[in-house]
């Protein structure tokens, strides 16, 4: 039974379908159309630095809003009876199981000119364009990824030993101190996995900005999509930079997590 052999097929699978494709991306980034070594793809990729920065910015703001919205909800959920907790978890998960394009499309229909929200606002005398700007893109992102923030926060907070809170209460801590000394430090792993699960997909997503944003709001994922079909070298270089940027982000984030775990 103590065999290592059953993992061999998967190791082969990972080499063929994960390692080789990444090596190909690397190779393609450092060559030109004719397969000669070249930095041309990278210099072209850096021409999109503004799109890169915008994607990171949109992802950052969306992650922040998700965290602010999800934290109280995760806490509220973790304080309920087991049956209410289960039901609420299900309620949060169901929209996640709807197709991602359909969820974005729902916002397109809601926000479009002469759509329901636009009609309601104009009845109130407010005339404005709701769609085609960065705000709409961020709204779409928050809508898309909010459950990914709520669930890890809730899971971690539900595991907090109620005895700890009662003990602190008995020893005279007020609610603020209980939050600061117990709930917040113990919820940090949830915050970190929530940030990871929202930031990574929102920084690299494509289509959300195409559907909800204006011409100037496209994100790096949209650029990869647009370029890759005609210029694989530049497309690979952008994908590589995106991958490295996300890797660095994850390493920094995990470093913070370890620090905090040691400190408490």
């Amino acid at each position: 039974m103590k065999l290592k052999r059953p993992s061999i097929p998967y190791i082969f699978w990972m080499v063929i379908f994960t390692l080789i494709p990444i090596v190909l991306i690397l190779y393609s980034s450092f060559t030109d159309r004719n397969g000669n070594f070249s930095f041309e793809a990278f210099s072209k990729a850096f021409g999109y630095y503004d799109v890169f920065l915008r994607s990171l910015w949109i992802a950052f703001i969306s992650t922040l809003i998700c965290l602010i919205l999800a934290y109280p909800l995760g806490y509220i959920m973790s304080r309920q009876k087991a049956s209410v907790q289960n039901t609420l978890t299900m309620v949060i998960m169901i929209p996640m199981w709807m197709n991602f394009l359909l969820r974005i499309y729902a916002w397109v229909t809601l926000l479009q000119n002469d759509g329901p929200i636009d009609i309601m606002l104009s009845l109130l005398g407010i005339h404005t364009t709701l769609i085609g700007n960065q705000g709409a893109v961020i709204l779409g992102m928050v809508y898309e990824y909010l459950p990914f923030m709520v669930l890890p926060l809730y899971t971690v907070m539900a595991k907090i030993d109620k005895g700890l809170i009662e003990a602190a209460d008995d020893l005279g801590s007020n609610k603020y101190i209980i939050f600061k000394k117990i709930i917040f430090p113990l919820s940090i792993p949830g915050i970190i996995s929530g940030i990871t699960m929202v930031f990574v997909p929102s920084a690299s997503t494509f289509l959300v900005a195409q559907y909800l944003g204006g011409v100037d709001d496209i994100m790096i994922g949209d650029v990869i999509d647009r370029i890759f079909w005609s210029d694989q070298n530049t497309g690979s270089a952008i994908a590589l930079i995106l991958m490295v940027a996300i890797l660095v982000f994850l390493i920094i984030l995990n470093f913070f997590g370890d620090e905090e775990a040691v400190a408490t």
Partner: protein
Amino acid sequence: MKKLSKIYTALIIFFMYMPIVVLILFSFNDGKTMVWKGFTLNWYTDLFKDSQIINSLWNTLMIAFLASLFATALGTMAAIGINNFKGKKRIFLQNASNIEILSPDIVTGVSLMLMFTLAGVAFNFKMGFLTVLLAHITFCTPYVVLNVLPRIRHMDYSVYEAALDLGCNQWQAFRKVVIHELMPGMFSGFLMSFTFSMDDFVITYFTRGASFQTLSIQIYTMTHQRISPKINALSALMFVVVLVLMVIINIKDRKLEKQNVQKAL
């Protein structure tokens, strides 16, 4: 629940469900705009007459089923093997498996596309059903590994040894003890794979070649052409299916929990 908590929870739920509800409402609208023109079921009948959509639905289900089946087998075997490695080698293998989960979908998509294009030239094939299936197995398997590994770690090997002592051969002991113990992990791995595969757009988009259609791709084409209430009808149906499935799973889980509690007593 306190009043403030209730209001907050209700607001978030409203935010999450309002777009879906509006979409469903307008799938019954007898008009193409967002102005209510009366009730109709035409968009639903149109949907079922659309052979392309039915075909895409079939493809989506086939891919999801085959990919999660294969991923469950591959991932369970992998988890059993990985569990028997020690120290750094094991951590390395686990991290290698997680790369696929952590790397952005679009990177997985384009890197696989690069490989399939090259392999296609070398071995003379075109991207389609098979390449999408291979890609889906690739991104589903790590989730199975993730679900099965903790169950192996908590497994009691002496039960397996006891089965052998009591006259089971190795295969019987494996099937009756190990598989039985790992079943819940395998099942949740399978379910996760199935839903991720069904929901995937990005990776399918890059590995599907010229003509292979799944539901996500179909929706993408539909939303790009012109906004059609047929999409609303499709969303409504998919939402109801998900809702029913989730409720059934939830009720079943609770019954199981109750049974377990009763057994324990």
